[in-house]
């Protein structure tokens, strides 16, 4: 198998700007539909945090011609599934069905994205579900540590500092008109990407997508540039106490490179060394394995259109929070101070390139790679060039990325766990 590339990915631009990418795959009779619209939390006012996500969650609740029951009855009746969810920069959609049901999925998707009726009673149910989720979040150590980390790492006015799903006080006050207005202004074909991978015929898909979205009109939502994100120059630490918990979650990190930054792949290799390779890289080896401090310790580099975070995470016994943080910082210091050895680098490069066939094993894996290629303008031959790009990363490049983005002495650190008085009590 050769990797998907310009020979077998068809890119087609509809008259209204919608970009369609199709790759046929007949290994299994299924098909995946995925993509995004250029609207998200980026476009919501701060006092309405959660509006973009709330809007996206409400779209499949009813349209001008279909009820909630009709939408889900049609999808689930043929074993298909579909969802729409609001992100920061984009609103994503995804669906899966047997190949012959693609027209049904496209028809329903088009109806929900373009002609939602936002039935008031359904909107209230969605609100209730979001409120329940936020209530669960308030007692979830992992989610609270992450939420707190974003607040610490990004300036207050930056969209990344604000919760995507919002807060109880914002969700409560968002009105029906706000949802309708956000949909009217924000949703349109400009910047929309549709990816189809699976047991389909490309020519037919082009026709079907054109029929579903070709006559959608609308101008792009104007966007202010993202606020500047400075380097963190001090320790910003906050602890969230949650009663009745037995474990603490730690998130330590920084604003990282954007996906389009020239040193993004250097940072990706660096992150692989730090907390991905094998059983979670150096962090897994030191924090989890040698010191037995945690069930899990690893790192994640987000990338994305803006300066998404670069995080080091662990779940530890409350008594081990301090040694675990010390151990994480030690590994960060090491990767900043010492060039990575040739063997370790070559192992990580081999992992990053060698794992590509596995990522491309499923239709969903291929579709998500194609969507990234389009969003970040990487070129249809990106997957075929990937090995060469990763092989070109040097120990100097890895160390430079570490020094540019990480700092063992200046970071954002969020900890969520039981209050100190409860430690040791079970």
């Amino acid at each position: 198998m050769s990797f998907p590339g310009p020979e077998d990915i068809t890119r087609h631009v509809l008259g209204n700007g919608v970009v369609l990418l199709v790759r046929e795959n007949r290994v299994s009779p299924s098909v995946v539909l995925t993509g995004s619209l250029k609207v998200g939390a980026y476009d919501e006012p701060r006092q309405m945090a959660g509006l973009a996500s709330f809007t996206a969650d409400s779209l499949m609740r009813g349209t001008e011609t279909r009820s909630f029951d009709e939408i889900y009855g049609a999808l689930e009746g043929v074993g298909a599934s579909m969802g729409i969810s609001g992100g920061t920069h984009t609103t994503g959609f995804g669906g899966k069905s047997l190949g012959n049901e693609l027209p049904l999925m496209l028809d329903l998707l088009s109806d929900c994205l373009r002609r939602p009726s936002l039935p008031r009673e359904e909107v209230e149910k969605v609100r209730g579900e979001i409120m329940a989720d936020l209530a669960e979040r308030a007692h979830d150590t992992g989610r609270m540590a992450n939420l707190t980390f974003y607040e610490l790492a990004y300036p207050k006015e930056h969209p990344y500092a604000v919760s995507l799903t919002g807060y109880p006080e914002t969700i409560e006050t968002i009105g029906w008109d706000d949802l309708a207005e956000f949909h009217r202004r924000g949703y349109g074909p400009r910047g929309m990407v549709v990816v189809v991978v699976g047991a389909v015929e490309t020519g037919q898909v082009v026709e079907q997508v054109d029929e579903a979205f070709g006559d959608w009109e609308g101008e792009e939502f104007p966007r202010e540039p993202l606020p500047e994100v400075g380097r963190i120059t001090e320790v910003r630490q906050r602890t969230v106490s949650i009663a009745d918990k037995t474990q603490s979650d730690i998130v330590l990190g920084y604003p990282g490179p954007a996906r389009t930054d020239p040193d993004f792949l250097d940072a990706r290799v660096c992150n692989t060394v730090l907390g991905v390779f094998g059983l979670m890289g150096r962090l897994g080896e030191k924090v989890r394995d040698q010191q037995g401090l945690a069930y899990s310790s690893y790192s994640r580099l987000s990338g994305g259109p803006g300066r998404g975070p670069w995080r080091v995470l662990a779940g530890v016994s409350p008594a081990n929070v301090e040694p675990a943080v010390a151990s994480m910082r030690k590994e960060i210091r090491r990767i900043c101070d010492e060039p990575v050895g040739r063997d370790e680098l070559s192992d990580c490069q081999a992992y990053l390139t060698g794992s590509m066939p596995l990522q491309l094993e499923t239709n969903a894996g291929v579709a998500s790679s194609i969507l990234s290629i389009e969003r970040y303008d990487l070129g249809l031959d990106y997957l075929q060039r990937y090995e060469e790009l990763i092989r070109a990363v040097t120990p100097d490049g890895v160390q430079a990325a570490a020094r540019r983005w990480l700092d063992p002495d200046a970071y954002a650190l969020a900890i969520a766990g039981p209050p100190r008085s409860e430690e040791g009590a079970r």
Partner: protein
Amino acid sequence: MANFRSPLTSCTSHSAIQFVQTELDNGLMVLVKETQAAPVASFWVWYRVGSRNEHLGVTGISHWVEHMLFKGTPSFPKGSAEKAIARQGGVFNGATWYDFTTFYATLPAERIELSLRIEADRMVNAEFDPAEVEAERSVILSERQGAENSPQFLLHEELMGAALRVHPYGSPTIGHMCDLETISPAQLRQYYETHYVPNNALIVVTGDIDASGMLELVEEHFGGIARGPEAPMVTAVEPPQRGERRVVVRREGFVPYLAEAFRAPGVREPDFFALAVLNAILTGASAMTFQGGGLTNKSSRLYRALVAQKLAVDVSGMLLPTIDPFVYTLSAVGRPGGSLADLEEALETELARVKTEEVLTEEVEKAIKQAQAQFAYSRESVTGQALWLGFSEIFADHTWAENYLNNLSAVTVEDVRQVAELYLDRSRQTVAWYIPASQT
């Protein structure tokens, strides 16, 4: 190629797809399936040991042994196996479940032999160094503490403990805290030497491989491993439940949860398939593997009755195939401040309906269509195919999965009503409530 017993089955269902089942002289069962979907191969070793084989005092020991098998051997010192796999671009992991412990790697097909070397080696050469056991004890205690942070884990643990008071399925796979604090290196080693032997194991290989060449490789790496002792039989049989059981968990939080368990039929009984259809009608099609997953369930009966009626924010059902009869569970996440009594009553009303009125033929047909689609999805990857072959061989045999759709298709609306009446019996249910502190 030598030392094979005659293959039990060897069939060619398609010119490009060959399936072979055989058993080595040391009792190791081998299933190989060629599929040219992608240039990768997936290699799995399944041991017929899990929390089903445990008893109080050593709960969690299977899971702990799984962890220790990542601690290295003289040939593959700690960390070197996962690095070797990662270097080849593979994924490598293990899992412990009620009925089994499995280790697998998926790799570019031409490099799959590496995982045979690793698995053959740790089938006999795992080390149980006391210092490593202690380090892992704190990791596992930390894993258990992490799980206890979740209200649903706490509720499910109480539900299972109440529903199954004799069978080991009633204890969590992670183990009870007191056992995790006291299990010794010697106990771990003895457990390993008893259960992690070729005659208690199953190998599954799928992918872009040549079946006969793969059998030779398996023989080369595993054929020389001596047969081990026969594992002790699991004799526990859950006695009949003679009345409703109820448990309550009270903890900090805002969200109430409800869970109910009902005794389920064994996987080889026709009732199992009728109950699978009933589950799809009540809560939507679930993927049925230990990895979970499934479709949305917004057109299911319980979604309409509980979530659409604003009594809950989520509802799900779980019918797991297991070696011994298990429980069928229904779970709902309530609304903050909502009444668990109202939620339970609405659930009972829906269950009463399926016991007294036949479901619609269209609902049965929909459940079958959903299962067909789920099967197509699970077969997209060679890893998914290997998982299903091994998983079904553990609790029944590999033909179980192949025949699953036919067995579902044979289910009638009357079958569904009968299993509802027989199994969703209020006088033999176990009900668990999670009451958040904000409601007390």
